[in-house]
């Protein structure tokens, strides 16, 4: 309906392989970016930043990292939170060891540490496949959380055992710590997420994307068409863990402000996995859709009892939330196993062939 593809012909491979070969997609993205960069900051409340916008961004990024590994390269991972933790602790250590270091540099560097740890735990993937590998990734999960707890150097021997983000500025602008304005933090997160998303889209539509998908779809065949399996798998682990690590660092630095080891325990891993799956494996867009759903759901559920005039205590609400999320996951998997991204793809397809039904 909105999509009028007629007349959009390509005279070069550049335009044929462009990010948005269809003009309307580019327009749509433009509208979304406008909303994100201009409209929201103008109108959103502090609560919206803290409870919705920033978490959505950070979760999207973490899910994107996981999606690289699971959705694109087909290696199921249950240990995302552990790598997020590595990113967070790395960033914490970097900013305490080198207090002068720019926070953005520290953030981007901390991803390198999680990438290294990710590659180390990715090595078994060369021999172990499928569910066995999934369980193996749990090893990293449990081991890393244990490490965060026991290795006091990591949290600078704080009595609380937690890491706390001090106030830091970015060329004079306070970006972390309790005094940072939510809108500043939002912009920070937004820019970094935008940048990484751009890079991930590029990566997944090019040579690496094909390597990974080939390994995912049929690893033996991939090897026989000349793909170096080790390189393909480990690159997926590295890129995935990098992105996840940066997301973890941002989670602590731009959202929570402090973290105990158990923040990075298995529920966070699952949270991210849900987002990736409900959003759609093998999709970049899906991560954002999934994150919006998972983050917004509890916030919305909070309002429901008020709307229908029932008093419910917060513990019960929490339980109901967990229950609803569980039911939603099952429901979604039944309705559209390939996630929201596929749902959008189907809708888009419908709009393109409108008014025809198929």
């Amino acid at each position, binding site marked *: 309906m909105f999509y009028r593809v*007629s007349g959009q012909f390509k005279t070069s491979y550049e335009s*044929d392989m462009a990010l948005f070969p269809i003009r309307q997609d580019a327009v749509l993205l433009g509208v979304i970016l406008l909303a994100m960069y201009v409209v929201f900051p103008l109108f959103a409340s502090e609560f919206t930043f803290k409870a919705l916008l920033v978490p959505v961004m950070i979760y999207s990024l973490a899910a994107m990292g996981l999606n690289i590994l699971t959705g694109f390269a087909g290696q199921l991972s249950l240990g995302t939170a552990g790598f997020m933790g590595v990113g967070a602790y790395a960033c914490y250590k970097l900013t305490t060891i080198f207090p002068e270091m720019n926070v953005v540099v520290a953030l981007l560097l901390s991803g390198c540490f999680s990438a290294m740890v990710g590659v180390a735990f990715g090595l078994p993937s060369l021999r172990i496949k499928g569910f066995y590998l999934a369980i193996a990734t749990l090893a990293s999960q449990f081991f890393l959380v244990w490490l965060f707890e026991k290795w006091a150097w990591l949290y600078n021997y704080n009595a609380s055992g937690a890491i706390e983000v001090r106030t830091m500025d970015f060329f004079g602008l306070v970006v972390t710590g309790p005094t940072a304005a939510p809108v500043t933090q939002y912009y920070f997160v937004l820019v970094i997420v935008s940048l990484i998303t751009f890079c991930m889209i590029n990566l997944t539509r090019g040579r690496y994307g094909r390597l990974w998908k080939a390994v995912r779809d049929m690893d033996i065949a991939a090897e026989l068409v000349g793909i170096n399996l080790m390189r393909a798998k480990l690159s997926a682990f590295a890129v995935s863990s990098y992105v996840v690590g940066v997301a973890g660092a941002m989670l602590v630095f731009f959202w929570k402000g402090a973290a105990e080891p158990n923040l990075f325990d298995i529920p966070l891993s699952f949270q991210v996995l849900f987002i990736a799956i409900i959003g759609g494996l093998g999709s970049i867009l899906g991560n954002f859709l999934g994150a919006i759903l998972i983050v917004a759901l509890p916030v919305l559920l909070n309002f429901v009892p008020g709307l229908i005039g029932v008093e419910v205590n917060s513990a019960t609400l929490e339980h109901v939330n967990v229950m609803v999320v569980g039911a939603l996951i099952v429901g979604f998997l039944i309705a559209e196993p390939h996630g929201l991204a596929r749902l959008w793809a189907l809708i888009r397809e419908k709009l393109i062939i409108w008014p025809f039904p198929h």
Partner: protein
Amino acid sequence: MAPMAQGATFPHILLENADLYGDKPAMREKDFGIWITWSWRQVLDEVRALSFGMQHLGLEQGDKVAIVGANRPQLYWAMCAVQALGGVPVPVYSDSVAEELAYVLEHAEVRFAVVEDQEQVDKVLEVSERLPYLRHVIYEDPRGLRDYDHSQLHGLADIQRIGRALMQDNPHLHDEWVQGLDRQSGADVAVMLYTSGTTGRPKGVMLTYDNLVISARNANAFDGLDSREDTVAYLPMAWVGDHVFSYAQALCAGYCVNCPEGPETVLADRKEIAPTYFFAPPRVFEGLLTHILVRMQDAGRMKQAMFHHFLKVAERVGERLLNGQPVSLWERLYYEVGEFCVYGPLKNQMGLSRLKVGYTAGEAIGPEIFSFYRSLGLNLKQLYGQTESSVFITLQPDGEIYADTVGVPFTGVEIKIADNGEVLYRSPGSFKAYFKNEKATAETKTEEGWVHTGDAGMFLENGHLKIIDRAKDVGKLSDGSLFAPKYLENKLKFFPNIKEAVAFGDARDFACAFINIDLTSVGNWAERNNISYASYQELAAHPQVYASIAEHVSQVNKDLAREPMMAGAQIKRFLILHKELDADDGELTRTLKVRRKFIAERYAPLIEALFDGSSQKHVVTEVTFEDGRTGSIEADVEIRDVERFASADGQGMQEAAE
């Protein structure tokens, strides 16, 4: 708007276009997944290189060069390259069998053949013994030709390479080439197009540069076409329409010609390009509409309801908007809603989103189909023309569109109607002569330059020409009223349920018709109404089918009654033929046109039954099956009478159905 080229010949115009339009796209071809584009400058370069190369091969002034293949840019270039050397391109239908190809190539005395691919090379080589003048064959696509004897066979790219090398060695070559162009004049023969001709051998129509250039410029002016247009070249290059739309008009206006990847991707490719200037025969538009309606049948109820609702709105408002007639603001707004929900997307699906003007011609188009497209806001128009007239004889001007006419005389065209109803014209576009066929030339073109079209027609009060039938087919009923079988048949065929019709009545008391039902359409209807049938024969004989066809026929009669000249020839009786007319049985030509005479002989008993008043007739018919075996089918064919109506002026048929 940029100034237009003024040259007298196509190579001249190309030269000017390269200056005027430079880097603007001149041609595109879908190949390797993208639209490879050549600017006017590049086209000039390609044409020049090819020209030098062919000159090197020995092409001389006056040489005829066959062009055989689908619409490839290289083949268009070859035409221009040949013209630049004073040669005459002879485009040939690429789907013609070797025998037909041999005749044309032999008759045209071609010295060169520029062909598309291995298939065409094989065809030419197969008949090469009969072509004493043929020297060289140049192919565009080298695939599969590697092991051929290359002594007289050349790749087009190789020829161009030679041409480029020559140009590099001799800097004066370009100037010599241009001087050569200046020696040519508009009166020279630009191209020879062989008309398929329903009878006898094809005739080579010689069109001069003046014929084509003046016609093309007039046509561009008529519809305001300029260098911003896009058109899709998909009709046979040997057909005059393609030559004018994709070559003459494109050069004169400087617009871009887009060549699809292959015949099976025309639809998709057209959708991508979204041409602004587009021609298609009526059957293409019919097919598109059927396709749309069939696809919509699977839509949900809501969507269907919305779709049909807005189509109704378009029916009311669309054409008036297009014709610039007054429309209320509310209707205009509501039409815009429809544009967003239905018309826009539909145009998008058909690849006509950017259409500025579209033409259809060749046969009569169903009025419903015609107004469907116009109501969507597509400026679809009809024209009337033929090879001998460089296409344009009459066109419908914007805002004066009547489904049943072919428009007013084109710029510079004079038209008169002969006593027997035949349309004659005289125009700047009318051809020079038939090649090596003075007899035919004399028969067709009078001393004063009037050309016989062979079509019977009449001018309506509004000054528009209406074509009735082939002049030789038009007859009279015994009471003297005009009987134009094809006119009746076309009216019948506009009903989707009727696939083919054959009308009889010349020198008879009244008019009758054979009907072939459309198996897809009627079959669909039967399926929806739970009517089971095992064969065409069974479905054709079904009483309900008869009833609905009878309704159609009486509707036609009602229409005819409104037309003063035609009211006398209403259809009194009809039958639904027990088998489909088939080219394998010789009932249709290979281009699926009805062979009236043959059918009349084959089904003589049925015709007698139509006229002797019997209500049923038993027949046995020989048939040829797909695998070539023959057999026979027999049936009792029912004959029905149909209601006829009094003519609008109160005369004619008074008697009711018997």
